[in-house]
C-alpha cells in the first residue's frame, strides 16, 4: 500500500467506515497515524450515531407533516400562462400608447389651428379642412360650454318658489310680488319660533319695562 498523507489517510478511514468496516480495521490499515486517527474517527462515529438517534424523532415529524405537505398545491406560474399574461399587458400598453398619441395629435392640431387661423388668411382653407376632420372628437368641449350657459336662468327661476318659506320674514313681504291672492297672510309668529335672534323692531325693550 502506498503511503498516504494524514488527510488522505483520514479520508480513507471515513470511506472504510461508510462501507461498514470497524474503527479497528482503519487503525490497522494506517498504524503510523493510529493514535491521532483514533481520536478523530471516534468523533466521526459519534456524529453518525448521533444522527441515527434522531431517527425516531424524524419519523414522528414525518407522520405529523405528511398530510399537509402532500396536499400542497404547487405554486408555479407556467410559461404558457406567463406568455398569455405578458401578451395581454403588451396589447393593453400598445393601445394606451397609440390612444395617447392620437389624443395628443388631435389636441395639438386644435391648438395650432386656433393659433394660426387669425394671422394668416392663406392658412384658413387648410385649417378648415383639418377642422372638419377633427371636429367629431374635438367638438365635445364646445357644446358643453353652451349647454351649461342655458340652464342657469331656468334654475334661478325655479329655485325662487322653493326658497320662499325659508326666507326671513322681514324682507319677503316687501320683495316678493303678490303672486297668489289665495296665499294666506304671512304670520310673523311662524318664523319667530325657529329663529334665535329676536325679530327686528321688537327688541326695543320699552314694553318690557
Amino acid at each position, binding site marked *: 500500500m502506498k503511503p498516504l498523507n*494524514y*488527510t*488522505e489517510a*483520514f*479520508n480513507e478511514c*471515513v470511506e472504510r*467506515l*461508510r462501507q*461498514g468496516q470497524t474503527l479497528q480495521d482503519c487503525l490497522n490499515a494506517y498504524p503510523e497515524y493510529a493514535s491521532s486517527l483514533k*481520536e*478523530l474517527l*471516534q*468523533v*466521526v*462515529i*459519534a*456524529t*453518525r*450515531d*448521533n*444522527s*441515527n*438517534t*434522531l*431517527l425516531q*424523532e*424524524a*419519523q414522528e*415529524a*414525518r407522520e*405529523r*407533516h*405528511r398530510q*399537509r*405537505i*402532500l396536499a*400542497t398545491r*404547487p*405554486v*408555479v406560474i*407556467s*410559461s404558457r400562462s406567463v406568455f398569455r399574461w405578458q401578451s395581454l399587458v403588451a396589447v393593453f400598453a400598445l393601445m394606451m400608447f397609440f390612444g395617447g398619441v392620437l389624443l395628443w395629435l388631435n389636441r395639438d392640431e386644435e391648438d395650432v389651428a386656433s393659433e394660426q387661423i387669425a394671422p394668416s388668411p392663406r392658412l384658413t382653407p387648410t385649417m378648415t379642412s383639418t377642422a372638419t376632420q377633427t371636429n367629431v372628437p374635438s367638438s365635445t368641449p364646445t357644446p358643453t360650454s353652451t349647454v351649461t350657459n342655458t340652464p342657469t336662468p331656468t334654475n334661478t327661476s325655479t329655485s325662487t318658489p322653493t326658497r320662499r318659506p325659508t326666507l326671513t320674514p322681514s324682507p319677503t313681504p316687501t320683495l316678493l310680488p303678490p303672486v297668489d291672492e289665495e296665499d294666506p297672510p304671512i304670520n310673523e309668529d311662524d318664523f319667530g319660533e325657529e329663529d334665535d335672534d329676536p325679530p327686528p323692531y321688537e327688541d326695543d325693550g320699552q314694553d318690557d319695562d
Partner: protein
Amino acid sequence: MIFLVLPDYTEEDRLLSLARGGSQLAIAEIYELYYVPVYQFMRMRVADRTLAEDMTSEVFVRMINAFNGKNAPSQSLRGWLFKVARYVIHDYYGAKKKMPQTTLEDWLPDPDESQHPEATFFKKIGIDALRQAIQALKPEYQEVIVLRFGQFLSLQETADIMGKTVGAIKVLQLRAIEKLRAQMLPLGGAEA
C-alpha cells in the same frame, strides 16, 4: 453499526424520473424516503425541534413546486434535497443575520457523570452535547460534518452540494472534525 437511511441510487433514479413525469405517487414515495435524512440534516444544525420540522417541510414544499416547474432536479435527488436544505437554513438565518451559536458552558455535562471511569468519551459528553458542539462550529464545518459523517454522503455528493471540489472537501472535513474534537477536549475526550 452503520444505519444508512438514504435509498440506493437505482431507486432514486426511478423515483426521480417518475416524479418528473408528474406522478404524485412518486412524490409521496420521495417524501417517505427522504424526509428522515433531510430532517436529520436540519436537526443536527438547528437546535429548535419545531424549527427543524418547519424547515424540513419547506424543503419538500419547494420540491413539489419544482417538479411542477422548470427547476426540477435532473440528476441527484438527494443532492438536490440537501442543497435546498442548505438554502432554507441560509434563508432563515440570513434573514436573522447570524446563526445562533451555543457556548461551551451550554453543553458541559454534569461533573458527577464524567467521574465514571467506565464511561466512554461519547457517553460522557452525551448526544445533545455533541449536537450542540456541532452547532457551535461555523456553518461550513457544520455542513461537511453532517453531510459526510451524519449522512455518509460521498465526497463527490458533498462537493456538489457545497459547491466545492473533492479535494477541498477532503481538507475541510479534516479541519472540521479536528475543530469539533478540540471543542470536546475539555470534556475528557483525550482520555478515550
